[in-house]
């Protein structure tokens, strides 16, 4: 995080291009995000994102960058829209018929809601790990190999074997399952299943990994392993994690965004947010006054 950002000129242009409109839009929504929502090495940028479920305005004018080599934690009370925002980033909200998304979300300057953007392609580049471990009812091997298979990432069996092995190694699961590759993935323990799901996600070599409360169904030991893994993975990926545990956010993330009732209240370096929150709501949440 100490690395100096790009040239001042580019920074200024960026600020002019993206910082101004949110202010106007947010004025309409009646609030202003505290802190800088921009990242040093942005991979995805969300600008003025609104999400509606039918009449329900679930997210109001949220702007946020997802940066490379960092973990950004989305925190906030239940129903604050953090998961909804996460699911906008790989268009999983498309599967909900009443959901409507407005605003701009780009992945390396490509508009992901543009007509020419194929969701299949998008989801291969923006992988997702879900709250409940959800391995396919297939073998461990087939779980990891599924993504590479459907996207045609391996030319032959040997290459596929290699992808499966590296993915499982990176997910810290290889030593535990290397003799059980043909056994069903659903037979593993909860923590192993979640690491299997992470391996399945990274087998496609995505650019961004979205994690929706990945540890909420796990015990503390399994949680610790996943957190170590997230720390490991950020060297290569941009990671967004939704969490209910503030300790977890403090442990794994470099930046934290605090959501409240569909609004992005405050965003900033994790250390800053947890030691010196600037907004009253953030402070109340972090000190445990509600949540």
């Amino acid at each position, binding site marked *: 995080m100490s690395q100096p950002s790009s040239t001042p000129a580019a920074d200024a242009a960026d600020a002019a291009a993206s910082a101004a409109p949110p202010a106007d839009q947010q004025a309409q929504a009646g609030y202003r995000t505290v802190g800088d929502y921009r990242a040093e090495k942005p991979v995805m940028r969300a600008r003025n994102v609104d999400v509606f479920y039918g009449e329900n305005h679930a997210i109001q004018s949220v702007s946020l960058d997802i940066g490379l080599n960092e973990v950004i934690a989305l925190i906030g009370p239940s129903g604050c829209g953090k998961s909804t925002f996460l699911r906008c980033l*790989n268009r*999983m909200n498309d*599967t909900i*018929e009443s959901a409507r998304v407005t605003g701009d979300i780009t992945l390396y300057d490509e508009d992901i809601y543009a007509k020419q953007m194929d969701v*299949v*392609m*998008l*989801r*291969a580049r923006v*992988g*997702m*790990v*879900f709250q*409940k471990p*959800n*391995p*396919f*009812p297939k073998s461990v091997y087939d779980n990891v190999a*599924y*993504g590479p298979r*459907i*996207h045609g990432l391996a030319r032959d069996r040997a290459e596929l074997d290699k992808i499966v092995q590296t993915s499982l190694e990176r997910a810290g699961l290889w030593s535990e399952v290397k003799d059980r590759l043909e056994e069903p993935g*659903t037979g593993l323990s909860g923590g192993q299943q979640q690491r299997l*799901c992470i391996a*399945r*996600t990274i*087998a*496609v070599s995505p650019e961004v990994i979205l994690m929706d409360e990945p540890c909420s169904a796990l015990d503390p030991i399994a949680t610790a392993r996943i957190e170590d893994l997230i720390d490991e993975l950020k060297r290569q990926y941009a990671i967004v994690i939704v969490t209910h545990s503030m300790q977890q956010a403090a442990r794994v993330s470099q930046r934290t965004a605090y959501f409240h009732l569909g609004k992005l209240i405050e965003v900033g370096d994790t250390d800053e947010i947890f030691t010196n929150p600037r907004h009253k709501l953030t402070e109340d949440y972090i000190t445990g006054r509600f949540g």
Partner: protein
Amino acid sequence: MTDGRAMSTRDRVGARLGRRHRNEVAFRLLGLAATLVGLVFLAVFFFTLVVNGVPAFQQTRILLDVELAADTIDPDGERDPETLRTASYQSLVRDALDERFPNVTSRGERRALYSLMSAGAGLELRDIVTSNPELIGQTLSLWLLADDDVDMAVKGNVRRDLPESARQLTDRQIEWIEALEADGRVDLKFNRFFFTSGDSRDPELAGIWSATVGSFFMLLVTLVISFPLGVATAMYLEEFAPRNRWTDMIEVNINNLAAVPSIVFGLLGLALFINLFGLPRSAPLVGGLVLSLMTLPVIIIASRAALTAVPPSIREAALGVGASKMQMVFHHVLPLAMPGMLTGTIIGMARALGESAPLLMIGMVAFIVDVPESPLDPSTALPVQVFLWADSPERAFVERTSAAILVLLAFLLLMNLAAILLRKRFERRY
């Protein structure tokens, strides 16, 4: 909390506890009683069927010394297959009877004597001779098929002490049977005609094979049409179709179709397939089409239920790694829903197998002797055969009706067993 309040809770709960327990016991007993009554009915049903039906699996045969006389079978001695096939074998049977009862001379008495044997006896002789012509000229001791009235008397289904006017057999005929029984020449043997032949006017020659084949062709047509159509419809409605007023209406209509009385489908089949499209009457093809109409809603409803039962987490997982919607459905949802779909299909097919009313409407109630060779040949079906036999006056058809029901039930049990095994085998894979 004060002591007084704690006591009062205890007392108030305690006061009602006795009644709650009594209600529980009473309800459990009521449930048990209902189950027992159901079981008793089932037991009575099976008991009467088995008692009535099982004797039909055996048939009375009489041991006769038949001389395969060359001058009757093949007078010119050329062993021409056509001559061998058309010879009067029944007269050989008659000669054997004359041999056994030489003092029966008058025309009427001899007629009565000959009627102890079935016309099937001659057919059996013909089969023996045509498959093995060297036997001509020899005298063989053969267990030959007896007439159905003899069969009834031997099995004790018709009491021999009834007044002569109240039974089919005359006193003389009973005497002959008893003489043969005294010689040990009357016995019950396995009834192969029942399983290998079609319908017949003679109960001892009537069998369920043509009805079974007809039912098989019909179910085949039903399966080929309704399974792919049903699964595809369910998949489209559940996974791909938008939710709007049209799909709601389609759904309501499908649910209603499942409740339409089957005879209505029979009328529809008569009007549509036979009158409009000109398909042949009495054909399993038309029967299968009609039963498809009936089975389709059942399969659609079961398949949709199976699809909804696949947890959303699996769908999300597939979409999350970038599977397209079709890949999600075909790689993950369909395999998990398949056991449920197959179970629904088998149960639908079992219902179709037991259906008779719509088949009456499309003419599958005809008297069919020949075994159908294709779904276009006229045919009956098992339940219709039961209906036809139940309607026949001959006493021997009573036990055949029960026996045919037993066979039908055996098929239904097998199908339901297959459904249960499928469900057990693939249960909870996710």
